[in-house]
């Protein structure tokens, strides 16, 4: 079963829920898809066994063959290649690696070369295996790194995916193909507003989902009303407790110190299993 953990608003507790659930069940592969700011390893403290660079393909122009006709830059939808009468410029950080420029070049002057945009890291802690991606600083495109992380998916295991915040392409790429998505929110106007946007995305994608309310006693009750009206299951509530916040701040998953929570996260996982029918 593949379960992703997402939220529109940042800092609602995605990583905390993902890690605590993963540590409470067996046979887990953890994929941290928040490649801009991967944090799961700061709670899991894995031994890193392997690292691999992540590349994308970008155009390489052979200046001897190029006659500056400009077909490539006319074709490129991302302004990643610019041709003037004397110079041709490639902006690798804008390139989506579609390969179109090489296809349209009438003089076959364009081939492709690798451009590094990130790193994959492989690790383990106990019988849990972890894969996470790290986007290079200054590189804008997270999606190709997320795709590489997801290529490591081992479907025979319980796969837990930690998503980046927001509702745009990196989130879509992460949750695509999940059997279920857990939306972590907090009962505040910001939390509710961003939850509603994420619900729309998941409904469009046809992915079943439920909500975990974190810091359940701060804010107001509107998120509960919303879930009731929309028939969205509330799978778990985590209260605001100073101890939980302090443990998190030190990099300790709270279910390891507050043992009653281990069972609650197991129940959460079993509940998801029931909803998915697996």
């Amino acid at each position, binding site marked *: 079963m593949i379960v992703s953990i997402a939220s*529109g*608003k*940042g*800092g*609602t507790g995605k*990583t905390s829920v993902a890690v605590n659930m993963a540590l409470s069940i067996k046979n887990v592969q953890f994929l941290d898809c*928040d490649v*801009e*700011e991967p*944090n799961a390893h*700061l*709670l899991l403290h894995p031994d890193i066994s392997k690292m691999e660079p992540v590349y994308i393909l970008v155009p390489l122009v052979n200046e001897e063959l190029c006659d500056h006709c400009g077909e490539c830059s006319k*074709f490129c*939808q*991302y302004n990643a290649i610019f041709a003037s009468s004397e110079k041709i410029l490639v902006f690798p950080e804008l390139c*989506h*690696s*579609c*390969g*179109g420029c090489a*296809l*349209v070049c009438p003089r076959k002057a364009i081939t492709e070369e690798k451009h590094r945009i990130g790193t994959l890291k492989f690790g383990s802690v106990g019988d849990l295996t972890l894969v996470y991606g790290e*986007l290079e*600083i*200054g*590189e*804008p*495109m*997270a999606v190709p790194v997320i795709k590489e992380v997801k290529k490591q998916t081992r479907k025979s295991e319980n796969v837990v995916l930690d998503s*980046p*915040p*927001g*509702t*745009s*392409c*990196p*989130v*879509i790429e992460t949750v*695509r193909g999940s059997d279920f998505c857990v939306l972590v929110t907090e009962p*505040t*106007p*910001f939390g509710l*507003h*961003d939850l509603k*946007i*994420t619900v*729309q*995305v998941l409904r*469009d*994608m046809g992915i079943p989902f439920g909500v975990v309310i974190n810091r359940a006693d*701060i*804010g*107001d009750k509107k998120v509960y009303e919303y879930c009731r009206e929309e028939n969205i299951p509330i799978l778990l509530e985590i209260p605001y407790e100073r101890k939980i*916040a*302090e443990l*998190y*701040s*030190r*990099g300790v998953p709270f279910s390891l110190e507050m043992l009653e929570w281990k069972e609650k996260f197991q129940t959460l996982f079993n509940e998801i299993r029931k909803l998915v029918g697996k």
Partner: protein
Amino acid sequence: MKQLTVLSGKGGTGKTTITASFTVLAKNAVIADCDVDAPDLHMLLHPEAIKTQEFRGSKLAVIDKTKCTECSLCREKCRFNAITEDIKVDPIACEGCGVCTIVCPVNAIALTERISGYAYISKTKYGFMAHALLSPGEANSGKLVTLVRQNAKMLAEKENSDLVIIDGSPGIGCPVIASVTGVDIGLVVTEPTMSGIHDLKRALQLLKHFNVAPFVCVNMHDINRDNTERILSFCKENSIEITGIIPFDPKVTEAMVNGKTIIEYSPESDVAKEIEGMWRKICSS
């Protein structure tokens, strides 16, 4: 005209709370909410839209089924797996590159524009605001951020404002890069947690990469005083100015529930006073 971007790396550290407070304190600033996929600033500033623009950020391939011979060449050449087995375009996977349109032997495919969101110019009690909303699930948030920033700049020039305050999104990727390029000051809001520290360092590297002067603020510093000390000494070693050390206070959430900034809701609170101090430091920088 100066531009200030509030960013954080990690989400939920308090960017929007601080940006909204600055807006109230600023006398003559234009505000830009550049968190276009989960914008929250409007819930504290209550803007009234005076102009709405359609945002056409990306294109979408459309197959004319009356011409298509189902030869599958488009499916073969598409690097985004956006053509399904029965030769249909998956609108979520399609990045609008146009490769399918040139490989199709019968010219059955064309790129069409799609509306990927809306940009707004609005009025608030505290000045003009540029903001936007990306359609859920859309790509190209960076382009929309750039549009919001252009609008903010245009407003600032028209209104003779000397400052644009930009609320960024979490992360360090495309929309954040679009929010920090060419600005004068980047204020990183962090929290004293292991993730907060990790993400702070990456956000600072990003500012360095784009030559933006960095400032740091530690929010909810009393959650873990040891980690706060770590952040302070890290900043000292790297000659980065700490502009504020804000305590945890449930009043911040209360203010949010009431749709107000902490400066309006509880002006006497330690949080409000600390933010005022930060504002003075940033203004004099």
